């Protein structure tokens, strides 16, 4: 059983996800092309970062209309694991697998740096082994999460906020809210907890050589899920 790394034209973290899963986590991963229509044989999906279709419309909007995303919708509805990081998170929102949207960062600039994240929930398999505070890299221009009040209420009420940007001690401050997201939200879960979208890049933090391994605590969910199959 394997994880499908979806490749859209313009994805540029697809190879990183592929190598992180295969080389660092020992999870068998394969590329699946955006024009493919089947995920049969896969137990998990990784929607990678990048600029799918150039992101010339809204980020992720074109990818949401691709053939493979129809199948990802069905796949997710079966309760199988789907993670979207960065552009993958944007695609999940545009596909309405997750609520809300991602806007241009508050400071109007692309930001690449390490950030601290506070885990806000223990719902679902992705967060099961994540410590209270982790550090992951971000690299995005459009990562300011926004949702209407009703959605926020529901996300908070049902434990579907996965991560918030925080400082090293886990405090939420205006400085730590790196891109101006509403309520410092960095990542959210679907109702069943099987779909996780987040702006930070767990696949960039799975070996010490690159400066961090906290991404393993999230992506390790694939190891567990695959071992059960």
């Amino acid at each position: 059983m394997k994880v499908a790394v979806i490749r859209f034209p313009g994805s540029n973290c697809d190879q990183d996800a592929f190598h992180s899963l295969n080389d660092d986590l020992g999870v068998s991963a394969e590329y699946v092309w955006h024009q493919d229509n089947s995920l049969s044989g896969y137990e998990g999906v990784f929607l990678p970062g990048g600029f799918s279709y150039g992101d010339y419309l809204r980020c992720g909007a074109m990818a949401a209309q691709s053939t493979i995303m129809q199948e990802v919708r069905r796949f997710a509805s079966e309760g199988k694991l789907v993670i979207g990081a960065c552009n993958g998170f944007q695609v999940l929102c545009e596909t309405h697998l997750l609520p809300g949207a991602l806007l241009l960062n508050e400071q109007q600039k692309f930001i690449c740096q390490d950030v601290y994240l506070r885990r806000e929930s223990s719902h679902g398999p992705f967060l099961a082994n994540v410590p209270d505070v982790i550090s992951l890299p971000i690299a995005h221009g459009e990562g300011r999460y926004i949702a209407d009040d009703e959605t926020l209420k529901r996300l908070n009420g049902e434990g579907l906020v996965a991560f918030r940007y925080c400082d090293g001690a886990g405090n939420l401050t205006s400085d730590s809210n790196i891109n101006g997201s509403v309520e410092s939200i960095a990542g959210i879960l679907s109702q069943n907890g099987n779909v996780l979208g987040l702006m930070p890049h767990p696949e960039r933090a799975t070996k010490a050589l690159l400066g961090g391994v906290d991404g393993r605590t999230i992506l390790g969910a694939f190891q567990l899920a695959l071992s059960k199959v």
Partner: protein
Amino acid sequence: MKPKAILKRMDAITPDVYLSMGLTESEFQKILTLMGRTPTLTEIGMFAVMWSEHCGYKYSRPILRYFKKYRDALDGEGLENAGIIPIGDGLGIVMKVESHNHPSAVEPYQGAATGVGGIIRDIFTMGARPIAGLNSLRFGPIHEGGAESEVVLRNRYLCEHVVAGIGGYGNCVGVPTVAGEVAFHPRYSGNPLVNAMAVGIVKIDEVTTAGAAGEGNPVIYLGSATGKDGIHGATFASDALGAENEDKRPNVQIGDPFAEKLLIEATLEALKTGAIQSIQDMGAAGLTCSTVEMSSKGEVGMDVNLDLVPMRESDMSAYELMLSESQERMLCVAFKGREQEVISVFEKWGLKAVVIGHVTPNGLVTVRRHGKIEAQVVASQLADECPTYTVIPEEPGYYRAAESFSLDDVPVTPAEEALSKLMSAPSLASKEWIFRQYDSQVQTQTSLPPGQGDAAVLAPRGTDKGLALKIDGNSRWVYLNPYVGGQLAVAEACRNVACTGGLPVGATDGLNFGNPTYPHVYWQFERAVKGIADACEIMQTPVVSGNVSFYNESDLGEVPPTPLIGILGILNHASRRIGMGSTLGQVDLHLVWYENDLGLHQGLGASSYLAEVHGIESGWPVAPNLPLERVLCEWLASQVDQQRLKLAHDVSEGGLAFCLAEIALASERGLEVNLQNGPWDPLTRPDSVLFGEFPGWVVVGVDPDDTAALSGTLPPGLRSNQLGRLTSQEWLLIRQNDQILLQTGQETLYHWHNSCIPQVLWH
């Protein structure tokens, strides 16, 4: 004359036509002689771009022969493959710098973006996967009072948009921007410098060729459609900037990083099929350059039907099609009968791949449009017969005046005041605000990202080895003493790479100068290149590629001579790389150095201290001892590989005090040193001890248990002194025996270093 006006004169090749394209009267006469007839407009346009300085290296070629590898390649097997640096494990590194100065002066976002795109294409056209981008930027003053307020505002606009363009393109195309440098000087106002460097990795047995071969083999056009942008861009790059800059906006290309990302993947995938015989990117001079160079390199010809070229506008003439510099395009020759394999890969990636002609044996590039031959030229005449020029160089008066500069009238500025001015000077301040706009980590091979070390370190998959990369240049040193400045540029970039643990193995350069027809500019160029070439031989870093950009001048004057040196260093184990700081454990600090001729000005000649604190740009920089620089680099690389060092940082612009302040900031803790007996003993001025710029000085940090053994590891010629240690205090303290030279709080240092750039660029 504007391009439109040229086109109106299609029927008559009058002097104003070819003069406006940048050809001289004698060059036109040479073309007439070579061709034996009057050229068509398309032909004269093709000659003009191929014989522009940008493509033809008219003024630089004779001087570039100073570079040993270039000279050997020209005299031997040719330049092809000369640019690959083997790193073992069957892998090679290709790297190159390219300038996009003039486009960036006119349209900073697109100018910078397409500069990045162009240099990345240069890499994957060789079959290499682009794994890193670097850049070196120069602007006029951005701080208040640095120039007239209108000029300052324009400089800020240029800086901000160039940075956005580099980020916008590099981030999307998925090549990490891992290192760079930015500096400011009044003489870059009006003509900023934007040099982009790209690095790629390739299996050596999969390196491609650009030499076309095989009569009847199909010529395939790959990538984006051709539009009317960038026509005569290469000629534009070979002329001075003037008040009519705005008219040149149509000469600037428009970039599409999404298309480039697809082009990278499609090209590398198509090459794997084995169906491609040869390939070249369409960069400067577009279809002209690719058809002519591929034909000339392969000693064949090409017959091309322009009607088949994908066009953005259907009414494009042969002239426009051959001269357009539309981006994200490639040209390849496939083996006959295998073209469909190439086409299929490109179509999968949603890109165009169209057979537009075939290889001929006759050495002619023949171009048809609407059934009519619009150009028929001998490829080698365009590629190889560009005339070269030498100018009698003239030593400018300022050079000797700088030699006799005296420090006597320069007061000693209190240390803290001087350090504050240095750390907050835009050229020396932290560039974090800039580099955090670049994705430095995509591809997940970046082991030492920007700001953490003297160079970036990559840990490429498929090998344990690490690649240390740096681009560097100091135009003040070069201006005041071009020969020594050229040597220093190489020595410093090598030292930077070695400070992370990389053994320097190869160089690339971006040579940015003024108008070469001015005798003093030609002198600057000749002396600087000589210095670089001599240094590269001793440092064992052959120059494998390079770029020359002349005519960097505007109404506000010519730029200071600005050669930029890119260096590749190899670490045996990427995981052992070190940075300039160490946040953990006890660390003793030592200065490792070789004996300098302390020079005429006690290390303060041409220094940042004189420039930023006293407003004086004079004196000569201290010359490096190159054989000992090489020994120093080898020692650093071996010590890092043996895991004996915890940090290393060289003493450069801003001197020892600045170096120590940066170590304290990078280590996120205090630092105390005592300057007892050491290389500063002969210095008579305290400012020269703290702020003098001495090549070959490196501060290293070791575990206290290793302190005693350090001097025993030094080879002959190198010496060391224990300076002090990192502390848990919150200040930087520099003492000399019983006297405190400097004591400054960490927060103050941070504020000096980090607030200046955001303050002026953040709106």
